[in-house]
């Protein structure tokens, strides 16, 4: 197990390093002065000069990448030349907002998806099971940004039940909660389907096992068997899914943040793309990549701990 852990963590580190190199070398692929590429049309000659010195753009490429890697390892993601603040500070300030949104989305999706999946498994092959299946595939398929736009149109613009844009006044929790509902709905809807299908599939497997048959033989009521005995085992694949799902969650958070004009890492990246501020884009993409690699590593390791067969596969 220790060997597996070391190998898995090593792989994660290598992936992050390759990602950094890839993001960094992209600016050198485009013809022209890298400083102009990085800073875009708004840059003044002084800014370019400063960037040249700071990043050592006249040094050989390998040296540049190595020194950038060294900085990243120490948590220094460079400077934002337009606001004169460190990139790491700007990115981590926005990260909280995105994490709150992502957690709220996945939270309600689990609250609805797990019972739906259990229900489907218990009443398998009935009409309502098929209906749940149909609903699950449907919500998985529809793009989250279309859900976001339609719900913005219906609940905020037409019915005016909920606020349309922003994240609410800081400190006023009711206000912030109201602003959270629509974006979290848009991101979470597809996950309700995912989780319901996954829980149904693994629940069906677990319900056939011997210890469940034994519980039945003892005459325990069905709801107790499902929720107290079977669910504990059937929930495991869902936990794994959440680990690998962080990347997709962050991607859909980008859309939700832009549609609902919420602050967050997605909005930050988008705004930096529009103003062509590459250091900020690179920093934010890096942070979200690290987040993703971290969560897949954790979920893989948990899986390997529970299932020895996984250990041999790496």
């Amino acid at each position: 197990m220790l060997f597996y852990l070391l190998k898995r963590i090593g792989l994660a580190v290598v992936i992050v390093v390759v990602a950094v190199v890839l993001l960094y070398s992209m600016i050198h692929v485009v013809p022209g002065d890298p400083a102009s590429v990085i800073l875009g049309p708004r840059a003044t000659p002084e800014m370019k000069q400063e960037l040249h010195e700071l990043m050592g753009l006249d040094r050989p490429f390998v040296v540049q990448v190595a020194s950038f890697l060294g900085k990243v390892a120490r948590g220094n993601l460079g400077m934002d030349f337009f606001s004169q603040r460190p990139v790491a500070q700007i990115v981590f300030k926005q990260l909280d907002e995105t994490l709150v949104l992502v957690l709220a989305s996945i939270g309600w999706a689990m609250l609805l998806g797990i019972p739906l999946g259990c229900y489907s498994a218990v009443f398998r092959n009935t009409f309502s099971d098929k209906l749940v299946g149909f609903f699950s595939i449907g919500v998985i398929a529809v793009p989250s940004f279309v859900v976001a736009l339609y719900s913005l149109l219906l609940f905020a613009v037409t019915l005016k039940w909920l606020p349309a844009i922003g994240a609410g006044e800081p400190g006023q929790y009711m206000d912030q909660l109201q602003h959270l509902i629509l974006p979290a709905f848009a991101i979470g809807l597809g996950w309700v389907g995912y989780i319901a299908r996954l829980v149904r599939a693994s629940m069906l497997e677990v319900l056939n096992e011997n210890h469940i048959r034994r519980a039945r033989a003892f005459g325990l009521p069905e709801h107790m068997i499902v929720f107290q005995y079977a669910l504990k085992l059937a929930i495991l694949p869902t936990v794994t899914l959440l680990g690998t799902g962080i990347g997709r969650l962050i991607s859909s958070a980008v859309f939700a943040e832009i549609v609902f004009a919420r602050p967050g890492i997605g909005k930050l990246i988008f705004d930096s793309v529009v103003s062509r501020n590459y250091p900020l884009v690179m920093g934010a993409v890096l942070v979200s990549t690290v987040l993703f690699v971290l969560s897949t590593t954790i979920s893989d390791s948990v899986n390997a701990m529970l299932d020895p067969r996984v250990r041999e596969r790496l």
Partner: protein
Amino acid sequence: MNWTKQFFYRLYREPMGFFGMILVALVIVSAVFAPFLTTHDHNALDIANRLAGPSAEHWMGTDQLGRDVFSRVVMGSRIAVWVALVTVSMSLGIGLVLGMMAGYGPKWLDAALLLLFDTLRSFPTIMFALALVTVFGPSLQTVIIVIVATTFPVYGRMVRTQTQALGNQEFIVAEEAMGAGMVRILGIHILPNIVGPLFIVASMDIPVVVTIEAGLSFLGVGVRPPTPSWGSILNDGYAYIRNTPWIIIFGGLPLIVTTLGFTFLGESLRDIFDPKLRRDL
């Protein structure tokens, strides 16, 4: 019953697949015959009639430049279908070649390619796209590069696993003993054995790819105006959402139809042809 008849019969028996097939047919017909279906020139400006509601003249209303939304939606299906075809076949091709190389080649190559697959898969797609766009500028090519770069590793990994499994089987070992070259073994013996399930996975990737293209165009970093994409129609509508909801409604509808259609069809295809492929997702 012959093969095609049986296929359509089974699809017909499966209501979800049948429904999916109708939706997919709708999208494909509209993409192929787009120029004959539009009621107006999709790029013709009519400023006097800008942001007009749905009417007999403009079935889905007009946008902020007075362009007919219905015609733009119909023409938009061409971009969606085209991007889906190009990216999925490119990913499939690259994934096949690299995956077979990893599965059959020397150990170091396998390790290197696996690392490449895992790294590319670990970028959140949209983030990766936005980083590329900052450097290369928004264009259809950038969209295609991003989609291919993030989807081919999935095929690559699948092909690798299957090639490895096949490589140890007796008929391959026998071929090797008779002195067959790598190209012959991979092309004639391994490829036909692994290509079936790949096509099913590819068909299930189409809605994902359509979503990415529309999403990037919605963000304004995909297909360049004035080319109509469903994403850019939504982007136009988003700015006027308070007073002219029809642009958003009709711009989102084809996306829902396409993603639902291909997903339902793909699910049924998988159940019909390869129930073993039924992963938990």
